[in-house]
C-alpha cells in the first residue's frame, strides 16, 4: 500500500510540519519561550495567501501560471510585519519577565488570531492558490512544488544563520544576550528580526498548505502541537533537529495511517513521544540542556 503517493504525501506533511517547527524553534532560541501561537500564524498566513490570491486574480488580466509563487514575496513581507507587531504585543512588554509570561501571552494572541479569522473570514474552509497550475506539472505538481519550496527555504535559512553576518549576530544574541550586547550587537533588534523571520516562515507554511490542506480558523492547534513535538524530539533549540523531527513525525503518521488507521496513528504518536521522553529525557537527538520554557 505504501507507494509513491504515500511518500509524496508524507513529504508534503513533513514540509508543512518542518516549516511550522522552524519558526517555533527560532523564537525558542531568541527568547527561550514556547510560542503557542505559531500554529495560528500558519493559519493566518493561509488567509493572507487567500486574500492576496483573490486580489491578484481580480486585478490582473493575464492568466497566472503560478499564482502561489507570484504572491509568495507578498505573503512573506506581510507576515514579517505582522511578526513585528506580534513581538511588540506579546514579547516587548514582558521581556524582563520569566519565559512563562511570554508563553501565556502567545496563548492569548493565538486565541485572538483564531477568533479574528472566524469573525472576518467566516468558518467555511477556504482554498488558497496553487503553487503551479495543474496543467503544468500534473496532479502532484502542487505537492512537489510545496516540498521543493520547503527544501529551498530550509536551505536558505541554514545559509542565512550560518553564512551571514546577520545570522551570526542572530545566533550570538540567542545564545548569550548579555555577551552579545557587550560586543555591540543590537540584541533587541535581533530579537525583533527573529520574530519577523519566524512569523514570515509561518506565513510561508500557511501559503504552501492553504491549497493542499485548505485553511480554516481552527487549524492552528494541530500545527502547533506537531511543531512542539518535532522540536522536542529534535533536541530543544536545534534547527536541524526540528526539521528531522518534523519529517520523522510525518513519515510515522503517514505510514501507520496507511498500514493500520488514522486514529491509531495519532494515538501512537503521543505514546511514542512519552516513550521517547521516558528513555531519553533530553529528546531524541538532544544533547545539551535547554533553557526554561
Amino acid at each position, binding site marked *: 500500500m505504501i507507494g509513491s503517493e504515500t511518500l509524496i504525501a508524507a513529504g508534503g506533511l513533513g514540509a508543512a510540519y518542518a516549516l511550522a517547527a522552524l519558526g517555533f524553534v527560532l523564537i525558542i532560541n531568541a527568547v527561550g519561550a*514556547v510560542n503557542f501561537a505559531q500554529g495560528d500564524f500558519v493559519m493566518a498566513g493561509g488567509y493572507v495567501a487567500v486574500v492576496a490570491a483573490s486580489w491578484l486574480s481580480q486585478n490582473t488580466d493575464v492568466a497566472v501560471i503560478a499564482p502561489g509563487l507570484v504572491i509568495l514575496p507578498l505573503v512573506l513581507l506581510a507576515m514579517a510585519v505582522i511578526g513585528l507587531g506580534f513581538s511588540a*504585543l*506579546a514579547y516587548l*512588554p*514582558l521581556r524582563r*519577565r520569566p519565559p*512563562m*509570561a511570554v*508563553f*501565556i*501571552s502567545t*496563548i*492569548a*494572541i*493565538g*486565541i*485572538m488570531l*483564531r*477568533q*479574528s479569522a*472566524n*469573525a472576518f473570514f467566516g468558518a467555511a474552509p477556504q482554498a488558497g492558490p496553487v503553487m503551479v497550475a495543474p496543467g503544468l506539472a500534473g496532479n502532484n505538481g502542487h505537492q512537489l512544488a510545496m516540498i521543493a519550496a520547503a527544501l529551498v527555504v530550509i536551505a536558505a535559512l541554514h545559509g542565512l544563520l550560518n553564512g551571514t553576518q546577520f545570522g551570526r549576530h542572530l545566533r550570538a544574541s540567542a545564545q548569550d544576550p548579555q555577551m552579545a550586547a557587550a560586543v555591540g550587537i543590537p540584541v533587541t533588534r535581533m530579537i525583533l528580526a527573529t520574530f519577523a523571520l519566524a512569523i514570515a516562515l509561518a506565513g510561508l507554511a500557511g501559503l504552501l498548505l492553504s491549497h493542499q490542506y485548505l485553511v480554516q480558523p481552527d487549524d492552528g*492547534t494541530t500545527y502547533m*502541537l506537531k511543531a*512542539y*513535538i518535532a522540536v*522536542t524530539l529534535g533536541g*530543544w533549540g536545534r534547527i536541524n533537529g526540528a526539521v528531522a523531527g518534523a519529517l520523522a513525525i510525518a513519515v510515522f503518521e503517514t505510514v501507520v495511517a496507511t498500514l493500520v488507521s488514522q*486514529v491509531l496513528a*495519532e*494515538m501512537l504518536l*503521543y*505514546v511514542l*513521544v*512519552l516513550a521517547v*521522553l*521516558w528513555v531519553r*529525557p*533530553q*529528546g531524541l537527538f538532544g544533547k545539551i*540542556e*535547554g533553557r*526554561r*520554557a
Partner: protein
Amino acid sequence: MTRQTLIGGGVVSALAVLFMANAGGYEMRLMSLAGIYTIAVLGYQMALGHAGVLSLAQGAFFGVGAYVTGILTTQHNLDGAAAMLAAMLVAAVLAALVAIPVLRLKTHYFALATLAIAEVVHLLAVNWTTVTGGANGIYGVPPLVLFSIEIASGWPLLVTVWSAVALAAGLVFWRTSGRRGLRLDLARETPLAADVVGINRRRQRFELFVLSAILAAVAGSFQAHAIGVVSPAVTDFALMVTILVATLVGGQQRILGAVIGGILVIHLPEWFRAFDVFYLIAYGAALLLVIIVAPKGIAGFWPRRHLQETHAAQPPPALCCRQASLHCANLRKHFGGVKAVDGITARFTTGQITGVIGPNGSGKSTLLNLLTGLIRADGGTITLDHKEVTSLSADTRARAGLARAFQHPDLVREHRVWEAVMAAIPLSKDSVQAAKDAAAACAHVDLQGQAATLVEHLSPEGLRRLEIARALATVPDILLLDEPAAGLTAAEQDRLAVTVRRLADDGLAIIVVEHGMRFLLPLADTIICLDQGQVIATGPAAEIAENPEVIDCYLGRFEEAAKEAGK
C-alpha cells in the same frame, strides 16, 4: 484573627447573601460553574504555582473525573458521592502512574509529556465508544446525591459547590502555607538549596501533582452533574487553556487568586456576549492585558503574607555537641576526559576548620559537590560518622547532618530573613522547637535584629550570613562553605572569620573552600591544597603557606595576582 480578616469575611458574607437573594437560575448556574473551576484552579495552583511544574494534563484529569462520574452514575447506578470518590481515586492512581516517568523531566519536556497524556485521554474519550459513548458522550447524568439528599441545580448546587471550594481551599492551605509553603518556595525557586537543606523534592512534587489531579477530578465530577452531559469537550485542550488562564489571571499561588480566576473565566465571556462573534477576541485581549499589567495575577495586588517571627531574641543556645566526622577515600569524578577529582582522600572532624585551596579547575567545587551529593562520584567512598553515604541523595545526606552554604547566595528573594531560615527546618519539628532553632541560627551569625528584613534588601554580607544561618537551621554536624569571603570587604571578611571560628568552637566540623588567603590562612586549622584533582599538600595553615609546591602551583600565582590587584 486580624481585623482585616474579619472585615474581609464580613464583606464576602454580605456579598454572598446579596447574591443569593437576587440571583436567578442563570446567575446561580454561572456561580456554580465558577466554583467548579475554582476547585480545578486550586488544584492547578498546587502543580504550577507551588510545585512549579507546567502541567498541561490538568484538563485531562478534570475530564477523567467527569467521565468516571458519568459512567458510574448512568450505567452502574452509583450515587453521586460514591462516584465522586471513585473519580478522585481513578485520577489519583492515574496521576501517580504518570508522575513516575514524567516528573523528572525539565519544564518544556514536562509540558509536552503532560500534553501528550492529555491528547491520549482525549483520543480515548472520542474513540473508545463502547465505554465513553464516543463523541456524543454520556447524557442524562443525574443530579448529585449527598447523604441521600438530591442536590438540584440552583442554590442547592451553588451552596454544595462552594462548600467544596472551602474544603479544597482548606486542603490547599494546609499543604502549601506556613513552613510547608516556605519549603515549597525553596524547592521551586532554588532547587539546589532545597537539596542541601534536606528537602525531598521528588516526594514534594509527587504529592502536589497527585493532589492537583484529585482536585481536578472533583471539579470534573461536579461539572458532570451540573451539565448533565459528559462529552469529549471536557478532555479538550480548550478546557486546559481555560484552567491555565484562570490560574494566571487570578494568581498562581493564592487561594484568593483561584477564586478570582474561577469567577472571571466563567463570567468574562458572558459579559462580552454583546460583542457578537468578536467576544472571544475581546476575551483574548483581556487575557493579554492582565498578563502585562498584573504579573502575579490579580491576587498579586494584595500584599504577600509573611510568616511572623515567633521567638523573642534570647541568648543563642549552643549548637550541636555531637562528635561527627566526614571521611572520603580515593574519591573520583570525571567529566568526559577531564579528571576533575582524581583520588582524593580526606577527613574532616568536629571542631576543626579545614580549608580547601587550589587553582581554578583544581577540583575544589567538584569535591564540595561530591561531598554534599549534588553530583555522584565515579569511584571511591564517602562516609559520614562511619556510615557510607556515597550513593545517597543530597537531601538524605543533609538530613544526616551535612549542611552547605553556596558561593552565590541561593535564596528566595521574596522571603524575609526569618522565613529563609525557617524554610530549612524539617517539618517534623514542632513550631516551638522550629522557632527556637531559627532564632538560634540567626543569632549565631549575628542576624537576630534583621528577622523581618526582605532577602532582596539584604547587603552582600547579610546574604552570606543568611546562607550560613539557613545551613545552621538544619542543626548540622558538618558545615561546608563555598568561598564565603568572595566579594566582601576586608572588614566584612574579618567579622565573618570571627563568626566561623565561633561556630567551630561550638563543635561544628567546617570545610571552607576559599581563594582569599587573607581570610583563610589565619582561620583554618588544616589546609588541603588541590591541583588537577589531586591532593598535593595537606597540613596546618602555617606549614602549607611555606610549602614550595603549593607556592609554585597556587600561592605564588595568588600573590602575584594580589600585587596586580594592589596596583
